[in-house]
């Protein structure tokens, strides 16, 4: 593959079929780190690429309102009130008040049409690192967390991103923290005096904050450290369903992000991995800052970045170089990312592509219109599936219910006959229903495909469809080794 496509396969999403190719790729990579990130997409098939309308990108307050409304109408539906138990009403409720399908569709569209491809790859890495699974009650929040908690924070420090995502209502809900209360908190004490009142600590987020988001088990922390972290976290987050007066009373404000319920907080100083953490709201920032600059965090995440972009088995030297960039930049993400990209571009071996990354690249290279416009989200199309369905079939979506450790960067975890069958079938479906603007041979010419790839495509005969499938499922386009 030529330089432009080799590099963008590694760290981006490949240039679209009609995009001009930059000559100075080093400068291009740097410019990508600063690229503006409007959510690009198409309103309907064959329309010009445009920015997603604001009304489809509501803020958190609006999202919470929609969620409350959705639940209220669901209740009426169960009770058979106000005509809410008709199919039309049910559908309208979903359409008007649930964000999941819209957010997921926006994510897919911006990956297909976006001009900020490198930032989108970084977004996928970090959104996976800070997995927020779809436990249904997180459905209205995941898209917001990815846009505002990850993508918008790529140019700051890791500490900033960590604190932001830890205090995002999506994370606080997904890992149960919105219901956790310190054992000695005012809320728990009051509750224990009442019959059938349950209040106390839930260590889910405290545990994963240490295990998955920062230091990892290699740090050798104890159950007491986990409990300490959970105690620091107690009080953070407010139920997305909470009505506004109750919310104002509990957190003294109206913002779901960084919401802190004082009466649920554990009083007193806490200790996590030897670090004393002050009581009160400031304690969490103190904890996340401590964890963000911890050597085990630097080692764990530097390794993970290398595994994602460079190699399944990065060398010690490669990891060390990222760690030293991390320390030199004091956790500045662009500094870290720049070093990772340097390694990725220099890496000689193939790096297997995640299913969704591969799919976006196939669509961009071929100029297919494989996804509906945002105006058509709710309209059935007998050729094009919803973004939700596509990603589900592919086996990889940030809106799926999954475990908090996210998707694996190790190719062996993606090696299965069913996974590979999906690649063939999607290549087939994109060619058949996506109205591709470029044929296999045109794409091979543009990307400077390897001889082995050309031979493989030639071996399947003259059918444009078979050639297209063979190209997209070739080792070169999947990020695998040639024969």
């Amino acid at each position, binding site marked *: 593959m030529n330089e432009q496509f080799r590099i963008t396969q590694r760290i981006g999403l490949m240039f679209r079929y009609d995009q001009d190719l930059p000559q100075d790729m080093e400068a291009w990579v740097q410019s990508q780190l600063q690229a503006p990130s409007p959510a690009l997409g198409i309103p309907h098939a064959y329309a010009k690429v445009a920015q997603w309308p604001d009304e489809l990108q509501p803020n958190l307050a609006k999202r919470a309102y929609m969620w409350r409304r959705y639940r209220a109408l669901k209740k009426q539906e169960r009770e058979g009130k106000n005509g809410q138990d008709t199919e039309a009403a049910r559908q309208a409720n979903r359409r008007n008040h649930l964000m999941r399908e819209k957010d997921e569709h926006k994510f897919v569209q911006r990956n297909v049409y976006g001009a900020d491809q490198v930032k989108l790859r970084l977004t996928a890495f970090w959104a996976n690192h800070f997995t927020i699974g779809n436990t249904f009650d997180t459905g209205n929040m995941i898209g917001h967390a990815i846009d505002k908690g990850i993508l918008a924070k790529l140019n700051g420090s890791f500490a900033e991103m960590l604190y932001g995502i830890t205090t995002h209502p999506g994370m606080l809900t997904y*890992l*149960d923290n919105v*219901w*956790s*209360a310190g054992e000695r908190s005012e809320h728990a004490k009051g509750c224990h005096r009442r019959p*059938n009142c*349950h*209040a*106390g*600590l*839930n*260590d*889910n987020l405290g*545990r994963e904050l240490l*295990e*998955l988001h920062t230091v990892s*088990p290699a740090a050798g922390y104890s*159950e007491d450290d986990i409990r300490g972290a959970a105690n620091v976290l107690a009080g953070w987050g407010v139920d997305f369903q909470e009505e506004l007066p109750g919310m104002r009373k509990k957190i003294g404000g109206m913002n779901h992000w960084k919401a802190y319920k004082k009466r649920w907080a554990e009083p007193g100083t806490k200790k996590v991995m030897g670090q004393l953490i002050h009581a009160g709201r400031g304690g969490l920032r103190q904890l996340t800052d401590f964890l963000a600059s911890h050597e085990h965090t630097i080692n764990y995440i530097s390794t993970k970045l290398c595994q994602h972009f460079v190699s399944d088995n990065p060398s010690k030297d490669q990891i060390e170089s990222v760690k030293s960039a991390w320390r030199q930049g004091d956790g500045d993400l662009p500094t870290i990312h720049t070093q990772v990209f340097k390694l990725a571009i220099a890496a000689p071996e193939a790096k297997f592509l995640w299913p969704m990354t591969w799919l976006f690249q196939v669509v961009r290279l071929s100029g297919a219109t494989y996804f509906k416009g945002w105006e058509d989200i709710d309209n059935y199309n*007998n*050729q*094009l*599936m919803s973004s939700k369905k596509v990603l589900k*079939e592919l*086996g990889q979506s940030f809106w799926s*219910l999954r*475990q*908090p*450790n996210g998707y694996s960067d190790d190719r*062996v*975890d*993606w*090696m*299965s*006959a*069913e*996974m*590979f*069958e999906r690649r*063939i*079938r*999607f290549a*087939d*479906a994109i060619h*058949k*229903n996506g109205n591709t603007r470029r044929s296999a041979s045109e794409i091979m010419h543009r990307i400077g495909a390897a001889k*082995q790839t050309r*031979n*493989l495509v030639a*071996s*399947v005969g003259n059918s444009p469809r078979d050639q297209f*499938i*063979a190209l997209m*499922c*070739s*080792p070169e386009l*999947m990020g*695998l*080794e*040639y*024969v």
Partner: protein
Amino acid sequence: MSKLTVGRRNLLKAGAASLFLAGVPIAGFTKDKLLGSISVIILEGGMDGLAAIPPIGDADLMRMRQAISPASYLPLNDFFGLHPSLQFYAQLMARGQASAVHATAFPYTKRSHFEGQNMIEGGGLSPFSEKTGWLGRALELAGVAGRSLSLDMPLILRGHRDNDNFYPASIRGSGRPPADLVEMIAMGHQMDAAQMFTKVARKSEERVQVPRDPASLAAYAGRVMAQTDGPVASVIRVGGFDTHANQVEEGDTDAGQLARQLSVVDDVIAGYRRGLGKAWDDAIILTLTEFGRTVAVNGTLGTDHGYGSVGLLAGGALPSSRVVTNWPGLSKKDQFERRDLLATIDYRSVCAACLEKALGLDHDLIASQIFHQPDLPRVFEHLFA
């Protein structure tokens, strides 16, 4: 870890029975034994064994977890009850075709899902020490294949190249890819990737439509396992057992998150029963979970990560129904690290016994070659004699 061996006294006796085989060069797989089948239901998240099979005879149970213990449990004996979601399993129990092993776990006490899941699937001595799974290694030794009912190939089945997976696609505008095209693509790939495409080519000959709910997949697995030359092992995952919050519904301890997930497990077992038909007689199904949960209820009507749990077994290969346990007690002093149910039976022994029964592999071979633990106690008699 020393605590674990204390409770193993009775089991070590059973282990001694197989010692005379230790000198046999390599017993391995004996073709003269009839093959049964082994199916594993992986319960992801850490299943609360104290709620699935509540030890109602232990006075500490109600003292410590009345808020989440199922009120309408089905009594199994004087000491153990069964969660009301496990209706089909209860019928099997009554017919002598289901057993449970209680206060059991893999020897992993650190309470991380991901280390724990790696341990129970990999079957290694420490997390992330294995690239293949214990079931995969067993099938490799026995020279027979298994199938996972999932989009991916779970770690537990890796280790035998003929193992396969099944999870039907539903992609608008695409039919089954023609085998000759896929074979050409396979030829362009190296090693493992080439193998995957070769399997896809083989699949494209099949024509099966199966709904993707766990019970339907189990019924399908049962059907193919019942066929001559079908797989002898299968794996199904059921998630949703990480019940930190709302494990039960407020005011109804028979309902809630755990009750729903246990119903799925019950349906999966019923699905297997339906699909296996006559092959049920030689079948063994067992559950696997990364850890149990805290004895005490947390502040959100749930439980946090713990240690000992329960293993559910079902199948015609079981001679009778039992609850096998060496009960450690639930009082604070009996708990593991003063919070969890202690595991007194190494669940690897249970897996080993099921492998021995289903695949005809010798216990010592299983212990040393599959679990890398030559002194793994043998519990076969407790389950299958």
